[in-house]
């Protein structure tokens, strides 16, 4: 996948870090110190359907499908996460118990066009 930089308008991953100390959550979340809430943004014009982040052959297959179905009028596709990982948290719950859990699919590692 591509990380957003400069003023590219194409589909890419934007990094965004939430520091728990800055939002006053460091007293009840013991670990980690923050959350990488990355997200996907940008355009997915026709010629980018199916890339990046997915198998190159997928991109070719999608383009062939578009041509075969004469879908020139097709609208743009969508910029979505193509790779994610869990967020591991060690925190105090409402009864001051200490809980460790992994929340699945919370951190976006790569983006791509559908």
């Amino acid at each position, binding site marked *: 996948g591509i990380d957003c930089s400069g003023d590219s308008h194409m589909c890419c991953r934007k990094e965004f870090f939430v520091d728990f100390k800055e939002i006053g*959550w460091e007293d009840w979340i013991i670990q980690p110190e923050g959350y990488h809430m990355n997200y996907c943004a940008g355009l997915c014009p026709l010629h980018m359907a199916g890339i990046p982040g997915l198998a190159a052959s997928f991109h070719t297959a999608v383009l062939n499908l578009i041509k075969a179905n004469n879908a020139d009028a097709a609208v743009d596709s969508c910029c979505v996460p193509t790779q994610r990982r869990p967020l591991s948290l060690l925190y105090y719950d409402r*009864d001051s118990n200490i809980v460790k859990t992994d929340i699945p699919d919370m951190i976006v590692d790569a983006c791509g066009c559908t």
Partner: protein
Amino acid sequence: AAPKEVWCPACGLAALTPTTQRDILIALAKQSILSKLHLPDRPNITQPTSRGALLTALRRMRALRVDSAISPGVPHDGSTPHLHPGMGVQEYEILSFAESGSSTSRSVRLHFRFTRELAGTEILQATLYLFWAVSGPGTHPVTVRLLQPDPAGLNMTVASETRLEVQRAGWATLDVGRSVQSLVGQGSQRLTVELEVAEDSGSPLLAGHRGSHWPFVAAQARARTPHRVQRR
């Protein structure tokens, strides 16, 4: 609108100012984490655990896990030890430190609270860790009772009773998986442990324990996956 007409590349609307965008993203992050932890709001911590007690508890849990990996026997109550994490299903490890309850010269009560969020989970394992600070030779018979409120919540009933012969100081563990599961299943939140010694020698547990030797329960839970409807 932003100072210079900046447009959002994806939707063509006027882009948000960086400050507004940041505020929205932080609000989204808070909402996302709280909803995934099934918490209505961020908890207010009244009594944070001492670092010593936390480190000791984590060390004890790791020691028990190494022992059970070496000789994975079946725990006392026959529940199968939790060996393979479910793929993609959210799992929890919970450390609940004791709250002191009523005590006499021969007995002491300890309370462990299990939070409401566990109502929809399956308790895979729960182990009670007690530190015996025994003084003097010989053995000290101790009766450990697990008490839980009756369905009406009025009286305490004995869920199980175990008699131990304490011979030397140190940590001891007791499997309380079944009791914690039935508590969570009933929607109750408090497990009460009563320790009683035979003669008037003062509970072997309370002598000289504080801080990093405080009793705790370590539990493993797994979110229940919605039952799959069998297609006939």
